[in-house]
Structure formats: structure tokens, C-alpha cells
């Protein structure tokens, strides 16, 4: 059954329109960041900029406390992910490899914790952190972010651990390894790609988090998310600098995301075909 020319053409036209719809905000963010001020405030927006400038990026980078916030964001993000990987590896090993009473209950708990409504727990979190005199500090933020990404980390790692053949571990046990040694020497190296992929999701979550840092931290304790949403106090109506800041903030996420898309796709496929 051959489709008519129109029948073959319209899906492509719609696809192009949709592509523009989805990419345009990203495109507009990046081009605004590079446009000279005159082009930004002109009464006819310059859709395809011909003059490029870095001044907005320079302004964003030199904004008060920018590098402090970059440091804070990296600290809480990496801290949360590393902590959650350590805690999650232990638990997911138990869940993937051992049978014990309460295993199902534990998995259910993890599934529910994954859906925890952090956005509406802000009041009690604020009071708990305030009572511990830890407002504006990075530690509580790191710990709560750790808890945010922990369920997902356990859930995914459990799959990766289950994919490591049990026979390898048993062989190591036969050869005289203790259970711990066999885990460190056999399972852990094979788990490296899984740990990578899992941690990237955690990075994105922690890097983007907004509701908690909004209530817990101010001034020098801010992260980039909070700083970015307060661009009007930072830059006034300077959209160029604001978009430069937004581009800065987005870049690491997009890099990780594109990397992850390819990896996760490949990983899932290779796992599915294996008989």
C-alpha cells in the first residue's frame, strides 16, 4: 500500500514543526545569551543573530558569589550522590542476592520513598534543620538530597547487581574468598558502569533541586538553582546575563543527559537480548 505524496509529506512537516516547538526555548536561551544588548531589546526580535558577544557570560560569572554558588551546587550534588551510592550498594546487594524476611516490605518501602512528596514536607524539614542550628549550611542539604536520590539508586543498582552472574561470585567463594572479598573483587568492578549510570540520574536530581534549598539556605549558602530563580534581584531586567546564567546552569545537565540517553538505551537493549 503506497501512500500518496501528501500522505508521506505531512508527518515530516508536523515533525519539523514539533522539533521547532521543543527546541525553541533552548535555542532562544542560548542565542539570547550570546546576543548584544541592542539585539535583545530591539522591537523586532533578532531570530538569527549575526553579532555574537560574550559580555553576558562575563557578567554572569562576575556576579556576586557566583563561584561560591557553583561550589555549593557541586558540593551538595556530588556529596549526595556519593553517599547514596555507598548506602545503596549495601542494600541493593542484600535485595538482589539474599532471601530474607521483610524483603518485600523493604522493596515496598523503597518504592514509596521514591515518591516522597518533598515539596510539601518543607515546613517540618525547615523546623528540624532550624532546631539543629544548621540553616544555611550545606550538610543538611546534602543529607536530604542523598535521601531524595537513594530510593532510585537502590532500585536501579538492584537490577545491575542481579545482572552480574551469581556463578562468578560462587567461583570466588570456592577459591577461598570471603563474601566481602568476592564482592569487592568480582562484583564491584563489573558494577562500575551500573554505578556510573545510576549516579548520573542522582546528579541531575540533586543539581536541579529547588524547594528545599529555597527554605533552608540563604546568602552564601545558596545553590545555583536558587540563585538562578532570583535573577531579577541579581541582574534586574538584564535578560542577556540571565540567559547566560541559565545556559551555564543547564550545560552540565544536558551533557550528562545526552550521555545517559545513549548509555542507558544501549545498556537496556543489551540486557534485554541476553538470554
Amino acid at each position, binding site marked *: 500500500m503506497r501512500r500518496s505524496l501528501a500522505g508521506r509529506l505531512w508527518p*515530516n512537516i508536523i*515533525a519539523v514543526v514539533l522539533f521547532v516547538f521543543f527546541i525553541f526555548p533552548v535555542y532562544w536561551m542560548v542565542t539570547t545569551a550570546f546576543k548584544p544588548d541592542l539585539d535583545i531589546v530591539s522591537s523586532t526580535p533578532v531570530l538569527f543573530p549575526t553579532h555574537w558577544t560574550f559580555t553576558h557570560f562575563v557578567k554572569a560569572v562576575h556576579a556576586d558569589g557566583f563561584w561560591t554558588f557553583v561550589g555549593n551546587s557541586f558540593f551538595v550534588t556530588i556529596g549526595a550522590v556519593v553517599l547514596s551510592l555507598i548506602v545503596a550498594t549495601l542494600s541493593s546487594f542484600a535485595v538482589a542476592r*539474599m532471601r*530474607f524476611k521483610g524483603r518485600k516490605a523493604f522493596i515496598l518501602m523503597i518504592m514509596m*520513598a521514591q515518591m516522597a512528596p518533598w515539596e510539601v514536607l518543607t515546613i517540618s524539614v525547615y523546623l*528540624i534543620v532550624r532546631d539543629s542550628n544548621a540553616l544555611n549550611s550545606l550538610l543538611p542539604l546534602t543529607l536530604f538530597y*542523598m*535521601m531524595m536520590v537513594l530510593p532510585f539508586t537502590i532500585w536501579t543498582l538492584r537490577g545491575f547487581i542481579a545482572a552480574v552472574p551469581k556463578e562468578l561470585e560462587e567461583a570466588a567463594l570456592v577459591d577461598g574468598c570471603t*563474601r566481602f572479598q568476592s564482592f569487592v573483587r568480582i562484583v564491584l568492578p563489573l558494577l562500575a558502569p551500573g554505578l556510573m549510570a545510576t549516579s548520573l540520574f542522582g546528579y541531575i536530581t540533586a543539581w*536541579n533541586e529547588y524547594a528545599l534549598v529555597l527554605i533552608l539556605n540563604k546568602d552564601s549558602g545558596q545553590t545555583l538553582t536558587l540563585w538562578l530563580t532570583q535573577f531579577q534581584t541579581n541582574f534586574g531586567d538584564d535578560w542577556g546575563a540571565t540567559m547566560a546564567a541559565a545556559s551555564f546552569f543547564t550545560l552540565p545537565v544536558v551533557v550528562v543527559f545526552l550521555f545517559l540517553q545513549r548509555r542507558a538505551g544501549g545498556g537496556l537493549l543489551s540486557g534485554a537480548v541476553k538470554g
Partner: protein
Amino acid sequence: MAAQYRGTKTRGPDPAVTPPQAGAALVAGSAKPSRPARPSTTGRASRFLPYLLLLPTLVATAVLLGYPLVRNLLISFQTLEPFQLIQHTTEWNGFGNYADQLTSSDFWHTAGRSVAFTAANVVLIMVAGTLIGLLLKRLGKRMRLLLSIGLVFAWAMPQVAGTTVYQWLFDTRNGVVNWALDGVGWHAMHNYNWLGHQLSTFAVITLMVVWGSIPFVALNLFAGLTTVSAEIFEAARMDGASAWRTFWQVVFPMLKPFFLSTTFLEVIWVFKAFTQVYALNAGGPEGLTETLPVYAYVEGFGNQHFGTGAAISMLTIVILMALMSYYFRVILKQEDEL
């Protein structure tokens, strides 16, 4: 037949002790003589080992998630305002906060608004996401790649950055949207203040949420569609089924678990969406775009009525729990092995 049945049955419950498993017997046989003390100690240790491994997770969950939940519940039964906060006193008022909320028109307006907002967004996300997923299946390789790139970028865009960009797109004076609408002849949109009205603010938020959420649905649906074998579509076409019928009688039944779980996930995500709603316009103008999570935040932190805010957030959690229990029922049904 009988022997086979017995064989499978003995292998089932305890593989380590049954002789048919040559490997296990060999391991047990070779390990026993050389180290006689080990089996009993590992036996006892391995009974506690799983719980030991779970301990860090359990402690973290109890302290960082369980305690905030309980604390939130306790606060919701208290009068907690700046006075009590500074004095460090605890003033219980029973169900006072709940009674206030459940009899206040503000609460019910906000709840209704939240439900309408969620319904509108989820319907748009699911319908458009499904259509785009189906379109991806129909496209040629290059066009599919092009559209996927657009989708992945929208998906990867962090919510706070997206919010900032949408504020710029819909800016009153220099926003490209106002310019475009004015350009195509809708002159009333010249210098239109999108964030100054309830419906137009909701329109921007909805566009932003839908824009950011469609990729998840579309790309996952496409991934699901590739698992449906081509013969089935071929057969449907040979039988003369229209695209509409093919979808409802072939695709939808096969991917029903996907549609169910995705819809519930989206409902939960949109219902508790805080970042987009708050960062765009802080629930304004005049609180007219506050959804329940934003309302709880504004009452709690903005107006310093922590007890009231906690009560609102508990009510929100109850609604979310109801939604989640449905979601878990769907998930557990489709996943027989946990």
C-alpha cells in the same frame, strides 16, 4: 511425566540440600572437610547479614524521611507562629488547623484549582505525548532523529532554567511570544502582561509543564512500540483497520500497563509540582495561581503560619497517597516478581 514432576518439585524449595544439583553438592563437599567451623558461623552471620546491609538505608529513611513526616503531622496539630517559634513553646490546638482549612473557601478554591490544573495538564501531556510517540514510529530515520533531539533537549532542560527561559519568552516588552502574536495580527497581545492575570499565568505554566513532560511520554511510548512486532501492525492493516482502530484495539491493549502507570505518574508529578508554579510567578497574581503545594508554602513561610501550612501539606499528602496507592496497585499487578 511423574518423575519429571517430582524432579522439579524437589528442586524448588531448597536447592542447596537436594542431591540433583551436582554443582551445589560439589561445593558443599569440597568446602566441608577443609573448613569444618565455617558453615555454622556463616550460617548465623548470613542470617543477620541482610539486615546489617539494609541498616544504613533504614536509618537514613527513618531520620531523613520518616521523622519529617511525623514531625509534619505533629506540627499540623499545633499553633505554630513566629511567637511560639521564638519562645520555643509547643501549643497544641487539636484539629483546629484542619477545621479551619476544611471550612475555609480559600482551601477549597485552591484544591479545586489544583485538581483542574492537574487534569488539564495530564490530559494534554498524555494525548500529545501519545500522538508524538506514534508519529515517531511512523517517521523515517532522519526525521525521527531530528524530532528526538528536540524532545531530549526539552526533557533535559532543568525546571528552574526552563522557568527563567519561559519568563523571558513571555516577557511583556521584549518577549518573542508577544512579538509573534502581534505579528500574526493579534494586536491585543502587543505588550501583554502574561503574568498579570490568572488564566494567562496558568497558560504559561501549563505550556511549560506540558512542554517539559511530553518527551518522557513520547519517547517511552516509542520505545514500547518498538517491542510490538511489525507483523501485528501488518495484520491489522491487512484486515483493513483504520489508524484509529489499530490504536485502540491493538496498541492500547498491548501497552495498557504503560499507559496506566505513566498516567498515574504524571498525575502525581503535576499535582505536587512546586518549582514551575512557584518560580514562575510565586502563585500570583494575588495568589490566584496557587496550587496546594504552593498554598502550603505561602501559608507556612510567607505568612508564618507554620501549623496551618503543615495541616495543608498533610491534606495534600493524603490526596497524593490516594493517588499513589492506585499507582502502586498498577505497578504491583504488572510486576509479579519483586
